[in-house]
């Protein structure tokens, strides 16, 4: 029974990390940019929840989603000059931006964490047989499935989705054929802002203590997932994120405590090995096709 319990927890964390990973992958697909600052969008959402403490829940949700989307748009603006620079320069730039935003958060809110108190009731559990399932676990899973599905639909069935896929495949060619690059990138950023907002809401219930590195701590494992799964493809990257969340819970439960502290090392060692052995990612079956998103 303990195993079933762990399995469900693992699925839930996997679903959350998959959402973060999807945001990272989507941006990489369209902009060829690994955005370290993506975590700070989540942090901004978390502080929005903190500042709206005491307000009605629908209002808090609206404010949080607005803040994450605006934050994503702002980051898009700041990173604009780095669209044309080589990838390593852009990587340093997003690293610097992430650091800058974390320290701005320290400046305004201090390093001490504060409790967001967002829907703590969802942490209650109901039981099926002997398995206790928290409502938030169910909610995260559901949200993960719905959002990944919705994203897939948008990419497959709408004009802007088609344009995003075209831009991801070959940005220059897409522009020549009339895809407006600013619009595609802006939409991608807005989508990732919305995803980050959704992740914040689900995370806030389970990890109520917001600190300046709140989002960074989630971004790093998700980034691992994206690289391991396949940076170049949205589905592969998202699966990678899921895989990392899933494995983290599973290993955290079954490893002896002495070994558990080295879990992070093991994850990052996998990253290095994958980069060396299968640089396209584990979940990418064929490399012939052009589609990256």
């Amino acid at each position, binding site marked *: 029974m303990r195993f079933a319990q762990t399995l469900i927890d693992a699925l839930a964390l996997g679903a959350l990390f998959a959402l973060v990973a999807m945001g990272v992958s989507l941006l990489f697909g369209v902009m*060829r940019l690994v955005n370290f600052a993506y975590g700070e969008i989540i942090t901004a959402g978390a502080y929005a929840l903190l500042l709206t403490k005491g307000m009605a829940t629908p209002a808090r949700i609206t404010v949080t989603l607005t803040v994450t989307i605006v934050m994503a748009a702002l980051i898009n603006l700041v990173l604009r000059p780095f669209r044309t620079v080589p990838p390593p320069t852009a990587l340093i730039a997003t690293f610097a931006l992430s*650091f800058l935003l974390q320290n701005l958060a320290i400046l305004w809110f201090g390093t001490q964490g504060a409790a967001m108190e967002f829907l703590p009731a969802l942490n209650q559990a109901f039981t099926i047989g002997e398995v206790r399932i928290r409502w938030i676990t169910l909610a995260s899973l559901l949200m993960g499935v719905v959002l990944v599905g919705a994203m897939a639909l948008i990419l497959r069935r709408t004009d802007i989705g088609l344009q995003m896929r075209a831009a991801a495949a070959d940005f220059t060619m897409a522009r020549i054929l009339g895809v407006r690059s600013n619009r595609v990138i802006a939409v991608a950023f807005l989508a990732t802002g919305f995803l980050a907002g959704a992740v914040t809401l689900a995370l806030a219930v389970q990890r109520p203590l917001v600190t300046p590195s709140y989002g960074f701590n989630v971004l790093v494992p998700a*980034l691992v997932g994206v690289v391991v799964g396949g940076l170049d493809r949205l589905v592969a990257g998202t699966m990678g994120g899921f895989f990392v969340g899933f494995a983290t819970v599973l290993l955290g439960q079954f490893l002896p405590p002495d070994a558990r502290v080295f879990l*992070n090392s093991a994850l990052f060692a996998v990253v*290095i090995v994958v980069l060396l052995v299968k640089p396209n990612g584990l979940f990418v079956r064929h490399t012939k096709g052009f589609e990256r998103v």
Partner: protein
Amino acid sequence: MNRRSLWELGGPMLLILAVAVAGSTMSRALQLQARSILVTTAVVVAMYLFIGNSGVLSFGHISFVALGAFAAGLATAPAAVKPTTFPELHPFLVQLQLGNIPSLVLAALIGGLFAFLVGVPIVRLSGLSAGIATFAVLIITNNVLRNWELIGPGAKTLSLIPTTTGFLQATLGAWLVVVVAYLYQRSRFGRMLRAAREDPSASRAVGIDIQRQRLLAFTLSGTLAGFGGGLLAHLLGSINTQQVFLDLTFLTLAMLVIGGIGSLWGAVVGAVVISTLNSFLAEAERGMNLVGVEFQVPGSTRLVAMGVLMLAMLALRPTGLTGSRELAWPFFHRRAHKSVRARMSDPDTPG
């Protein structure tokens, strides 16, 4: 060696000497800041040796600094206190007692050995992959050092390290690193690596083994970074794993980028200018008196300022303050160099 090329070495060394001389005339607190500028310069130049010459980004160099710092610290901290503070430490490390200079040599050796071991796989990567893989190295090193109490102090602070990094040791240490970096970049190995940075295909065609050259530079750079870590441990007198992790990585990379990633002069100028500014802001965070006006800025202002500066520099002038040129003999015209954008280009990704 002609006058111009000698100046490429002499200029940076004079700047370091100027910091030391100016610093030694100041108050005690500022003296510590000045010495820390010199040690930081050593670390940044060590990073430049690999990043600048190869054009491959590394987020991992601070792990070599960390290893060097802990090696030098453990080798010189009093043997009597080690078993009580760190009960799980390996008996060999408890016994280990070295003098100041041997501990710095040990720090350099450990840094170099670790860089070599890490480098064997890592040098096969470039561009984005190298950035992410070296970031992984940084996280792994920190995670292991923090949790494995057999080889180090774990999450605790290692203190009572003899503070032997005075102005003499800091200056000579920074000079040594600069001289090695200079000799390397003028050697045939350095030239081969720079050729590979400019045009990987052409350099392969003339028989340069890029991975071997990168590994050599990575190891040498790791050795110097380990040495810099040793200097750092002897400067601070106490060290813990969080002091040699993300913050320091960010700061040193900011220095390299702001100074100019493609030249030795850029690395030294960036380190001196940015750590001076950093020290100034650190004092301001503590509260200071400037021209009769008491003022204090809130904590972490300096990291915010660094972030803004770094982003602005990357966006507006990616070749840094120095334009990634070496210091020219002041009586000749400067030689034009290619922009650093071309140098940092990623051979794996088209466009």
